[in-house]
């Protein structure tokens, strides 16, 4: 049951990451997930100050807001100050990260946030964290609920905006000419991504979240030739590496997060060697 709850939570994250990761990879913004994961920090500290807990709804909202605003600021500096996209990414997220660190150290011992819990998360505690409101909400662990809500938001977004998303992911230029607002779609994707990053971060730590957003999507992109295949394969890679990496971690007494990411890395390596020619002449490619 414990394992099932962990895997269910991870599976829902894998679903969100498969979508968000694929869109961002195709829009050449894969490093944005890394940036957004780092930018969670100041929001986390401020949320903690407000609520006094490390994973209340305030913390999640503040962290998501800070993560989203980093993505927004990156786009803004890139567009209006003409700073290269990579440079603006690096500038914004490192600055926010630094602000977060200074906030933590200024607050001294009052903040129960350390590097270990931020990096590794508390995957093993996932099945033991309940809302303890003594209601129907206690039926499932809190991290699983969080994943369910954000997963539902993604599903709704897909259901209502599938065509626009598909158009946007491949050709933003065409998207604009077709009368679909490129900015609105991008911001919606980034907002949902920031929610996913924060709830994922809360359950599993930064490493696993970034790994989940980048590796399965890249692996799937190597193998697949259509959208549906890409999303399905990246979901499978996410689930497969969770199962395998988690088992290895239990068996060898490793840290589960890094172990899962390493397994996903091996999946990518295998796919890269086996399918390296697949992309050469394919039209299934991102544009600028």
């Amino acid at each position, binding site marked *: 049951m414990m394992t099932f709850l962990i895997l269910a939570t991870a599976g829902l994250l894998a679903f969100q990451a498969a979508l968000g990761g694929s869109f961002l*990879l195709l829009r*050449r*913004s*894969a*490093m944005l*997930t*890394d940036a957004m994961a*780092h930018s969670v920090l100041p929001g986390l500290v401020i949320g903690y100050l407000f609520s006094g807990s490390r994973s209340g709804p305030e913390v999640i909202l503040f962290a998501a807001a800070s993560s989203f605003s980093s993505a927004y600021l990156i786009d*803004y*500096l890139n567009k*209006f*100050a*003409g*700073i*290269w996209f*990579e*440079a603006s*990414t*690096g*500038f914004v997220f*490192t*600055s926010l*990260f*630094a*602000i977060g*660190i*200074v906030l933590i*150290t*200024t607050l*001294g011992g009052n903040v129960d946030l350390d*590097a270990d819990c931020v*990096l*590794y998360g508390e995957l093993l505690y996932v099945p033991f964290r309940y809302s303890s409101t003594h209601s129907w909400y206690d039926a499932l662990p809190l991290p699983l609920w969080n994943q369910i809500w954000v997963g539902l938001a993604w599903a709704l977004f897909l259901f209502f905006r599938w065509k626009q998303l598909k158009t946007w992911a491949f050709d933003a230029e065409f998207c604009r000419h077709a009368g679909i607002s490129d900015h609105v779609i991008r911001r919606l994707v980034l907002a949902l991504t920031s929610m996913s990053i924060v709830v994922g971060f809360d359950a599993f730590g930064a*490493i696993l979240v*970034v*790994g989940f957003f*980048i*590796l399965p999507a*890249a692996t799937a*992109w*190597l193998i697949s030739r259509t959208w549906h295949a890409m999303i399905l394969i990246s979901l499978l890679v996410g689930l497969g590496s969770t199962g395998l990496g988690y088992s290895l971690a239990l068996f060898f*007494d*490793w*840290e589960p*997060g*890094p*172990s899962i*990411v*390493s397994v*996903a*890395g091996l999946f*990518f390596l295998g796919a*890269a060697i086996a*399918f*390296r020619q697949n*992309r*050469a002449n394919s039209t299934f*490619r*991102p544009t600028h």
Partner: protein
Amino acid sequence: MISTQLLWIIAGCVLAAYLLALSGIPTYLRREALTGDALSHAIFPGVVLAVWISGSNAGWPTYVSGMLVGSLALFLIQTIHQKTRIPKDGATGIVLIVFFSAGLLLLGRLQRSGIPLGGIQHVLLGKAATLLPADLGILGILAILGSLLFFVFQKWVWLEAFDAKFAQHSGLPTFAYSFVLNTWTALVLTATIQILGAVLSAAMLLTPAALGHFLSPNPKILIRTALLSAIAAAVFAGFISASIPAMSTGALMVIMLFFLSFPFFLLYPEKGILMKWIARKKEARRWSDENTLKFLFNSTGIRSAIQNNPSLRRLSNKKLVHQNNQGEWHLTQTGIKNAERIVRKHRLWETFLHQRLLVPEDHVHENAELMEHLLDDEAEERLAQELNHPSSDPHLSPIPPRK
């Protein structure tokens, strides 16, 4: 005693910041700004490996293994990008996260087997207070070596940044250049992440060069801005972190640099976000004022339906229009003069389009609506000469003479 310690820390910070800012310039100009971030995470397993083998994180094994693992990571990014056509930033992210995870797995093994870890926990967040004189010596040697390398090979750096293909054709050994640059950056990051932390070293590698390049692509200005801003941030951060021992020096440095560079991004003439916004607003106002003047010129004595029209308010402040007792707006003497200029430009342009470009007379108005705001005095004069000072436009309306 305190002051010597303080001097050590500040010297260490300044050396580290100088090294990173200098090495960041070529990397930035090759548009590989995020490579520094990838590299500073990717050398982590190298550092852990060195600790495992040699038992401490000070000394040459760390540098050698950090350099090797870093070069391997950059080689992999390049290979993945070229062989599989995954976008460069995707490849960067993949290598970053996988190498970092591998490092964390290794670190976990080490912690469980009870091997003393030295200062390895500082690799993530950095700690300048633990700086040893030996570290300072290494930083100093690297700084001298880096400056020499940079100033000897400066021409290559600019050539490669300006046009990589051209550089290759004019005999620059591109592969060797990349290899040396990558290895050097890995070495510098290995030396600095223990003082500043992984993410923050990456920031110090990128931001000074970004600021320099934002101010001017001119090499001299770029280098000076990058180095000076990095050193200033380092001195500030060193002072503050010496008085507040728990504070992360790297984070302070990055925040200083943020506060140093963000005003430039906002306020730098002609490039800053706010300045560009103000210039756009001004231009829009000029157009709308000119349109208002023209409108009043064509139909004088208009009762403005909108009481608080901003364009009318601006014009009446400049004494170009005034409102009489019945609330009607009229042009003043200067107002008429200004309006005539705009109408003249409009009608001259219409005449030009009709006579010289043979545009039908019912098609010339829209284009003249734009050009009346864009023609300057000299162009207007030349246009009039070219058309032999016409007295009326294609619609037979008089063209006001120049006064």
